[in-house]
């Protein structure tokens, strides 16, 4: 990044010497005491050996080689279902088992083994990631006196390391020196706190001399400091160096995971390593999240467990009765030789032990393979998400990533999105777009909002003929700004044309303010010959670029002067002007303005000021209000267009006036004491008065690509969007306008704190505001009215208290958009929790910085924006995308699909296991409740593993009710998820009922058909094996046909799995029948010899299959024809290709499928249309 540029030779620190580096004043009082016991011998690793601190190896893995087995097993058997199956597997080794042990143990081993393998694989990935970090290289001072490369894991406490530009710090370091003489270095702490601006660190004066490799040979020192702790912003310790003790404060500490920027190299001593470092102490393991569907699935499992218990009880009771009364007369069973289990003398014991048998026998009601199938399916779904080319960002080369596969279906049920602003909705890049100078607006390029609105209106022109002309004027050709930070277009100002304007003097002044009133540093880009600017805020950068483009190029800064080159002058020759800087009154959030006092070339002292319009307007002199009215109007327009505005003003100062003030100011500056800040502020305030308003700027906080469109689509899909930002209220509101969360005509409910000292009073005031807001909403008659709630952080702190939060939430959910500004990371998490718990709906949090981590972890789904450098948010997230706009596809397409897939899959799973498991129970009643299974052990083993698992998995992975394009065109289809149409109890019980019906049909058809008569022309009667096999065939056919009916999307994969499963059953029978009868028993050659030649077998299969699927088919046919759901209609339209033939109807359906929205530009355009219509009506 830095190549091709020459840094202005300058001791950067001097720029900041006005106010940076206020000493923190924390003394080393408690050093050596408890909590402050750490002693670091600098550059003496051998001393360190006596006092071992943790090494710099980090490990984020859950298991190690030895603990994997016990720990992972424990995790697995934590699940109730698995524990139950474990119990069954153990019981299967006793004679109580109705099955052979292998048929119980094998599936369990498979399921547990697979889950463990997955765990292991994930842990392996973490291990590899750790290893990558641990094996990064850094220069470490070695005993030979030079600096050699060492891996991070070998870095020890006390080592002296040299970190170069753009490298990460390997551990927490004490800064000794940098390439700058004064020991300054700049670090980027993106990974720690999400802030993108650079922070300056400064070494102790005493160690400044240590700025070359050779100086360290004799360097010795002892650092005594606090013990490892997670506080990022404090540090207490001291350095004993050359016989003196120096206090160390946080400005000397370089934290691990932050990055060295704009500094060639630094030297530092390692203080905290590995897990002792502050960032590692801060890391919390992200909480494991489970989706709603899965939680509900647990309830279904409980229901099935109850059913299982009930039928087991019935069965045991029946068994006990049979044992007591029938067993004695069943001579063929030799009751006199019976063991306890069958002994008629002890029916209670028999009944109890039969309970165990029954619990195992009917275990098929609880689908053992469900968990593992879901796990596999979700991993595959996640792979599809990762592979989706339409969520792949070509600019950065980063695809979307499902970092956990647990929450795929939750994506389809999101109700509220909580979004960060900077870096998420916006790129954190400002473009200078418009300005108003001396009451005249300049700048013709439209903002994105205007563009998008124009486009949308053009799309809808069909219906709104009268709006067409309105749009046409605004319609804009594709426009791309080649200059970063500058999107201004107006021939009146560009290329020096401003000289011809009547207000040229004012324009020049305006540009001077832009070019001089700042704290930025210019950098020459050698390739282009242009200057770029390193500014504190992107706003400032864009002003400088604008000034440059308008002909006022700021090209040099010295410690006391700013140099500006004026390209266009009356004489036609460029002039370089020097402005001597006398004072800088910095921008703070409280002052909301920035002022510089300069002396220009002619010796004139000027005060140049830029600031928030409200602040500046209060400080104008009488004649300074010349352009006030016009400017105010323009500012309102800019605000509506979603732009950030600042007002510019100036004042000429007399020499004497300045000197008097400066004395006052210097006095305040040098004073010591608590009221220093207040004094400084007063002094500044005195000067910043009687200003003359020059104009205003409008900067576009550049939204990320496609954000307004995405928000619009999400709104159409019925999602609510809350913006939680650390920005100030004005900015947040601007962005609200920019991305159509707010619009003119929307009623804004601003809740602010009164500023009173009394806490109680403040609270009451806020409560009153909330109540008023609610009243206002209640009394609103206009159905189109929309409300926006805007609240700032301080107020939010009160509103989130227990006694108020529900009321606040009540108001918030009534509002179409909610914007919370100036919120701390913790408040973001609290708001998220409030929404999650208060509404009980699914929340999704999206953000990019470390300040969003809390929110991301708290929300049901956390989405991180990857691509920018900080990875903290991504690491904490469940999904990561590189652009906000991909959220649309992630939710509306993948979320919708995954939700439906998983819901249908689970329903089907229960259906199939009920249909199968219950036949066992019915048959039991015909065997004197003895626990004899009608099916061969092998059939049962294969049932869940091979014969019915693949089709349902293909349903779970590949099913698409409608194609992705349709999902995007009909966002309303998404609402099926949040309304949980596919996994409500009605549907679940419906499927269970279907399973019950199916089991009854299969069982009774079979036992009545294969009753006592011959089932073949050759006179043989049906035995247990024949009945079991036929019944099983019917089951395999019915279940697979049922899933074919459930699916609506058949690729070859579905065909292969469904029909392949059925074929597999016959193939298995053939193979099993061909094995020696020692293994196959009664199933020996059963298909070839007994069943296949019997027409009755095939006929029964056909009959049972059709009879089982007939009710379901009638149901879905009825539903589709007479109570169709959204996707049914769309499918039909697509099927008949009506979208191609009847464009009009297609469009109509599409607009019908939108949710009624109050936010997004669809809503905005609608509002505009209503407005225009109202006007037209009035005219008529």
């Amino acid at each position, binding site marked *: 990044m830095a190549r091709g540029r020459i840094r202005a030779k300058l001791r950067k620190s001097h720029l900041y010497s006005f106010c940076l580096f206020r000493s923190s004043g924390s003394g080393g009082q408690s050093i050596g005491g408890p909590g402050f016991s750490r002693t670091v011998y600098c550059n003496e690793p051998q001393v360190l050996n006596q006092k071992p601190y943790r090494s710099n190896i980090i490990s984020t893995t859950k298991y190690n080689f030895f603990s994997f087995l016990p720990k992972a097993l424990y995790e697995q058997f934590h699940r109730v279902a698995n524990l139950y199956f474990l119990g069954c597997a153990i019981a299967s080794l006793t004679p109580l088992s109705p099955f052979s042990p292998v048929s119980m143990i094998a599936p369990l081993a498979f399921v547990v083994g697979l889950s463990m393998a997955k765990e292991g694989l994930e842990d392996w990935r973490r291990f590899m990631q750790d290893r990558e970090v641990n094996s990064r290289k850094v220069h470490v001072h070695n005993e030979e006196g030079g600096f050699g490369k060492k891996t991070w894991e070998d870095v020890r406490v006390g080592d002296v390391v040299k970190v170069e530009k753009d490298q990460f710090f390997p551990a927490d370091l004490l800064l000794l020196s940098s390439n700058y003489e004064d020991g300054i270095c700049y670090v980027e702490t993106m990974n720690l706190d999400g802030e993108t601006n650079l922070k300056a660190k400064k070494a102790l004066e005493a160690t400044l001399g240590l700025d070359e490799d050779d100086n360290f040979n004799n360097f010795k020192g002892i650092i005594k400091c606090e013990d490892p702790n997670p506080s990022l912003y404090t540090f207490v310790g001291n350095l004993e160096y050359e016989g003196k003790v120096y206090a160390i404060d946080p400005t000397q500490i370089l934290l691990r995971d932050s990055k060295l920027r704009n500094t060639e190299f630094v030297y530092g001593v390692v203080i905290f390593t590995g897990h002792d470092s502050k960032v590692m102490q801060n890391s919390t393991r992200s909480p494991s999240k489970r989706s709603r569907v899965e939680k509900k699935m647990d309830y279904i499992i409980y229901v099935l467990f109850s059913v299982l218990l009930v039928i087991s009880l019935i069965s045991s009771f029946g068994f006990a009765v049979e044992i007591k009364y029938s067993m004695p*007369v*069943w*001579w*063929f*069973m*030799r009751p006199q*030789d*019976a063991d306890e289990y*069958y002994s008629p003398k002890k029916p209670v014991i028999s009944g109890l032990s039969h309970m165990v048998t029954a619990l195992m026998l009917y275990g098929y009601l609880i689908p053992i393979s469900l968990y593992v199938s879901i796990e596999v399916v979700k991993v595959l779904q996640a792979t*599809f998400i990762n592979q989706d080319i339409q969520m792949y960002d070509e600019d950065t080369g980063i695809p979307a990533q499902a970092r956990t596969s647990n929450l795929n279906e939750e994506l389809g049920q999101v109700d509220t999105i909580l979004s960060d602003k900077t870096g998420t909705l916006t790129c954190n890049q400002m473009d200078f777009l418009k300005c108003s100078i001396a009451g005249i607006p300049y700048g013709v390029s439209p903002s994105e909002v205007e563009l998008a609105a124009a486009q949308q209106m053009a799309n809808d022109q069909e219906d709104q003929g009268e709006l067409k002309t309105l749009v046409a004027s605004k319609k804009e050709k594709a426009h791309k700004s080649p200059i970063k930070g500058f999107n201004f277009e107006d021939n009146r100002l560009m290329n020096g044309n401003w000289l011809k304007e009547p207000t040229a003097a004012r324009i020049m002044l305006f540009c001077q303010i832009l070019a001089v009133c700042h704290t930025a540093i210019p950098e020459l880009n050698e390739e282009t010959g242009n200057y770029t600017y390193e500014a504190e805020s992107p706003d400032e950068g864009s002003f400088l670029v604008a000034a440059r483009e308008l002909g006022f190029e700021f090209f040099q800064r010295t410690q006391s002067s700013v140099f500006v080159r004026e390209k266009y002058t009356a004489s036609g020759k460029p002039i370089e002007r020097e402005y001597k800087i006398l004072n800088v009154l910095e921008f703070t959030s409280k002052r909301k303005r920035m002022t510089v006092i300069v002396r220009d070339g002619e010796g004139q002292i000027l005060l140049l000021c830029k600031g928030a319009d409200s602040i500046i307007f209060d400080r104008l002199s009488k004649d300074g209000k010349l352009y006030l009215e016009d400017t105010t109007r323009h500012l309102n327009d800019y605000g509506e267009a979603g732009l950030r505005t600042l007002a510019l003003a100036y004042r000429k100062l007399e020499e004497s006036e300045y000197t008097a003030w400066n004395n006052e100011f210097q006095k305040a500056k040098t004073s010591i004491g608590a009221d220093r800040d207040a004094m400084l502020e007063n002094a500044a305030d005195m000067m910043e008065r009687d200003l003359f308003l020059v104009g205003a700027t409008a900067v576009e906080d550049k939204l990320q690509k496609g954000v307004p469109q995405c928000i619009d689509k999400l709104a159409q899909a019925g999602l609510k969007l809350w913006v939680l930002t650390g920005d100030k209220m004005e900015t947040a509101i601007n962005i609200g306008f920019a991305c159509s969360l707010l619009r003119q005509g929307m009623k804004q409910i601003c809740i602010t704190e009164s500023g009173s000292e009394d806490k109680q009073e403040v609270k009451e005031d806020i409560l009153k505001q909330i109540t008023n807001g609610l009243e206002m909403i209640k009394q609103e008659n206009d159905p189109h009215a929309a409300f926006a709630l805007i609240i700032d952080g301080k107020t939010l702190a009160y509103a989130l208290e227990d006694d108020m939060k529900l009321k606040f939430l009540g108001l918030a959910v009534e509002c179409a958009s909610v914007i919370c500004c100036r919120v701390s990371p913790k408040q973001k998490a609290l708001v998220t929790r409030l929404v999650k718990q208060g509404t009980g709906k699914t929340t999704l949090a999206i953000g990019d910085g470390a300040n969003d981590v809390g929110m991301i972890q708290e929300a049901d789904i956390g989405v991180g924006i990857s691509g920018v450098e900080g990875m903290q948010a991504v690491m904490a997230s469940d999904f990561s995308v590189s652009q906000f706009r991909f959220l649309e596809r992630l939710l509306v397409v993948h979320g919708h699909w995954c939700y439906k897939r998983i819901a249908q899959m689970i329903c089907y799973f229960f259906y199939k296991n009920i249909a199968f498991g219950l036949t066992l129970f019915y048959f039991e009643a*015909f*065997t004197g409740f*003895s626990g*004899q299974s*009608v099916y061969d052990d092998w059939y049962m083993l294969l049932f869940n593993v091979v014969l019915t698992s693949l089709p349902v998995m293909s349903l779970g992975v590949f099913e*698409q009710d409608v194609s*992705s394009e349709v999902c995007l065109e009909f966002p309303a289809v998404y609402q099926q998820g949040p309304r949980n149409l596919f996994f409500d109890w009605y549907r679940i019980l419906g499927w269970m009922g279907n399973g019950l019906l199916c089991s009854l049909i299969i069982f009774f058809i079979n*036992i*009545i*058909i*294969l*009753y*006592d*008569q*011959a*089932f*073949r*022309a050759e*006179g*043989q*009667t*049906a*035995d*247990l*094996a024949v009945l079991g096999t036929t019944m099983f065939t019917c089951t395999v056919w019915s279940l697979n046909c049922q899933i074919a009916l459930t699916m*609506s*999307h*058949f*690729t*070859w994969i579905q065909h292969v799995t469904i029909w392949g499963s059925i074929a597999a059953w016959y193939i298995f029978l053939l193979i099993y029948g061909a094995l*020696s*009868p020692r293994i196959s028993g*009664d199933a*020996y*050659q059963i298909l070839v*010899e007994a069943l296949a030649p019997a027409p*009755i077998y095939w*006929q029964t299969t056909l009959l049972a299959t*059709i*009879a089982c699927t*007939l009710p379901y*088919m*009638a149901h879905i*046919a*009825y539903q589709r*024809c*007479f109570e169709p759901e959204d996707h049914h209609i769309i*499918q*039909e339209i*697509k099927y008949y290709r009506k979208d191609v033939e009847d464009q009009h109807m297609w469009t109509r359906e599409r607009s019908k499928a939108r949710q009624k929205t109050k936010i997004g530009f669809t809503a905005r355009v609608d509002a505009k249309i209503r407005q225009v219509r109202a006007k037209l009506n009035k005219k008529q």
Partner: protein
Amino acid sequence: MDTDRERHRARETAFYLFTQQSLPACKPVLTPGWVIAIFLFMGVIFIPVGLVTLRASHCVVEIVDRYDIDCVPEPSRMDKVSYIQDDSIPKNCSRFMKVHKYMKAPIYIYYQLDNYYQNHRRYVKSRSDKQLLDGQKYHDTSYCQPVESNNNRPIVPCGLIAWSLFNDTFEFIREGAELKVNRKNIAWKSDRGHKFGKNVYPFNFQNGTLIGGGKLNPEIPLSDQEDLIVWMRTSALPSFRKLYGRIEEDLDVDDVVVVNLMNNYNTYSFGGKKKLVLSTSSWLGGKNDFLGHACVFVGCSSLTLAIIFVLLHVKYRR
């Protein structure tokens, strides 16, 4: 070369389509037209099939004679159990079966037991397939509990099933002449060939204090003991028929068949019925109307549904 590259490209495209979840797919939609057509089709298929099946079932002639009570002499009927357990009383008994419809050979002879839990878990498990195949060479008879050995010597065939072998016998006489009953090939061929050893002879069978059912001729290998083989195919339901033999002569209407039977088997203690069944068979097997009825029912339901959907569709056109 070119074809290779093309194939490679085709494979790549297919993979791309797969990862993008846009493989070519068939998306059938159950439109009203299809629904009606499918229901009609099922009706049209199932009703004739049902009728044919019913016809086949009706062609089968079946004579059932319950003999368990009538074969106990009047005085013993109060205590049938002690009658059947008393070896000194001769158990022979004669029954008359009147043929009400022409029966074409082969006529299958079944014995039918009711309320006999051959499918009880304790009973079903009590056998050793390995021993049946390998005889005494196979020593592990623990599966055969509680009939695994006697006098410390293994029993072949072991287990409850073999021990409780059915041992009533039947002789058929028509118009004074004995009807030839073919008792060969009544068991599955695979059972005879591969499941019951050709060199395995009954050993130590029914030698204990408790005698269950029939005895076996120790001279005949298990593979030829077809009664045993049939018996060892445990039935699925507590009421079952097992094949006894075949009469290979036609029986005319009004023929009277005299059955001389030995009523040896004890079903009295648990109140089980014993029946003798003579039945012809059709291509579908024995007499069972249910399949036909069920097919007709499903067919009719389909047709009805088709009609309902037509009506609904006409009335509430979307």
